[in-house]
């Protein structure tokens, strides 16, 4: 009986991972199957010479898209969480308003404008879009890191210190674990927004899933636009539901018996 319980735990996929897996599978099928959907897109654009975007393979575009968003996310998360931690420490408290304002400014500044300003300095290609995503995605992470850390009950932090934890141990073992659900929610918002925003990269020569959309707009080919938009939406849904599953797992762990 014991071994059967054990086996079912090993083999069975936990229900919260089913949705992200489904979306990812659908994305994969769409990326690989897109070239064979000629008939459907012909119906959208009966008069076009070509209805399937073919300047690059869709999986290459998807790979670059994920790369750009991923790099931006890693940098944003590191910067945002570190800044959030720093300004909630005793020694960094003076910078709290400044960091809040810089992060808000980053998001109020339109990414298109960031791109326009970044290209003369950084040149065409991947770098300007990563910078734009970074600025745009910083606010949710900083804001949620601050909120998450601030929400940790003062008496719990005091007890941790009084038990003889070092400030670093209080942060590592108490504050961050308790703030993680809120921080993760910020990361989720940031990354999901940036998956869509990354498409702008196509305008400055960073080839990704935005390429078919821009090419479609330029050439008046709605089929291209649809293909790019569909794949970006599926990617966003897959990643978003992955975060959803992660949050559920975390909640489960925090409140499990």
């Amino acid at each position, binding site marked *: 009986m014991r071994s059967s319980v054990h086996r079912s735990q090993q083999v069975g996929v936990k229900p919260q991972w089913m949705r992200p897996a489904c979306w990812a599978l659908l994305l994969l099928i769409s990326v690989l199957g897109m070239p064979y959907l000629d008939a459907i897109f012909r119906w959208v654009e009966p008069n076009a010479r070509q209805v399937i975007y073919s300047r690059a393979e869709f999986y290459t575009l998807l790979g670059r898209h994920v790369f750009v968003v991923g790099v931006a996310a890693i940098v944003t998360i590191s910067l945002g969480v570190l800044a959030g931690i720093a300004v909630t420490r005793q020694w960094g408290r003076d910078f709290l308003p400044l960091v809040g304002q810089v992060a808000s400014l980053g998001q109020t500044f339109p990414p298109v404008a960031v791109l326009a300003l970044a290209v003369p300095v950084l040149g065409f290609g991947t770098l300007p879009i990563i910078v734009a995503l970074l600025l745009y995605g910083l606010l949710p992470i900083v804001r949620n890191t601050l909120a998450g850390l601030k929400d940790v009950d003062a008496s719990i932090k005091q007890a941790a210190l009084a038990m003889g934890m070092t400030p670093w141990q209080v942060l590592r073992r108490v504050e961050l674990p308790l703030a993680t659900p809120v921080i993760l929610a910020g990361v989720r918002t940031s990354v999901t927004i940036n998956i869509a925003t990354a498409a702008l990269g196509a305008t400055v020569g960073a080839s990704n899933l935005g390429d078919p959309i821009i090419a479609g707009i330029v050439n008046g080919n709605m089929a291209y636009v649809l293909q790019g938009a569909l794949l970006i939406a599926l990617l966003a849904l897959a990643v978003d539901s992955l975060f959803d599953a992660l949050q559920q797992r975390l909640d489960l762990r925090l*409140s499990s018996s």
Partner: protein
Amino acid sequence: MIELSHVSKRFGEDTAVDDISLHVAKGKFCALVGSSGCGKSTTLRMINRLIAHSSGDIILDGQLVEQYNPVKLRRRIGYVIQSTGLFPHWTVARNIGLVPRLLKWSSNDVTTRVNELMHLLGLPVEEFAHKYPHQLSGGQAQRVGVARALAADPDILLMDEPFGALDPITREKLQDELAKLQARLHKTVVFVTHDMDEALKLADHLVVMREGRIVQQGTPLALLQHPNDPFVESLLGGLERGLKQAALTRVKDHMTSLGQSLPAQARIPADFSLRQALSMMLRDHCDRLTVVDQQDMPIGELSLRKIVKEARVDKVSHRDA
């Protein structure tokens, strides 16, 4: 041993603690009593350096507190607070084992110690070890808080209104258990409370604070007999003071040997309090009780007239002194 001498704490213009001196001998239970904002919690937190004192000396085991490394100091001082401060993302067992783990005990030793403490605090291991704090009642959570404070077997225990948030029945139960625990473990305890009855029940040494100063300190009985200030007197219950004093006095200290006269009908064990004896006299409409030992054998007699007379003599003799 804890020694505070002329300790003050100023926050900017405000003086939270004003020139207090206080000595808690090893193994003694000291209660700081006063209304909120009187500086009692601040005093407590200066002992484990959660708050740095502004002037004066705080000496633990012969050494000034500022000479200790604060982290190491706190690991050898147990600390219990009203809101328990349990870590909500850790199980009961992990919460209790915190300080031993910080001190790098082996995991076997930690488990053994945690089980021992859960047993000591009346928390069955199988039932509670894997629960999370939000699954506990207030009383259970505070037991875990006390167990966590005792985990590394510290000599000193600081308790900041540990039972303040509990319902009266649970509070009384935990007070009784703490008294029993203290009789066994002999920790040096500093206990902050605004509840004078709690302080009278638990303390060997009572310190009444008001507006950052110590108004009076001494044994509970000494304070009850001779409050030197209207504030202390009102804290001690005004007219009820006589009964509170009686609660701290054992029947055996006031009984007389069995005389020629027949013992009274009502019986009372010798280690009951005088307060319980008085209550029994009122209930049973009598002014004499037969005092019995643990085997229920008569060993003496308690008479109301004599209790009242002795209380008067007490008062007169103290006035003379």
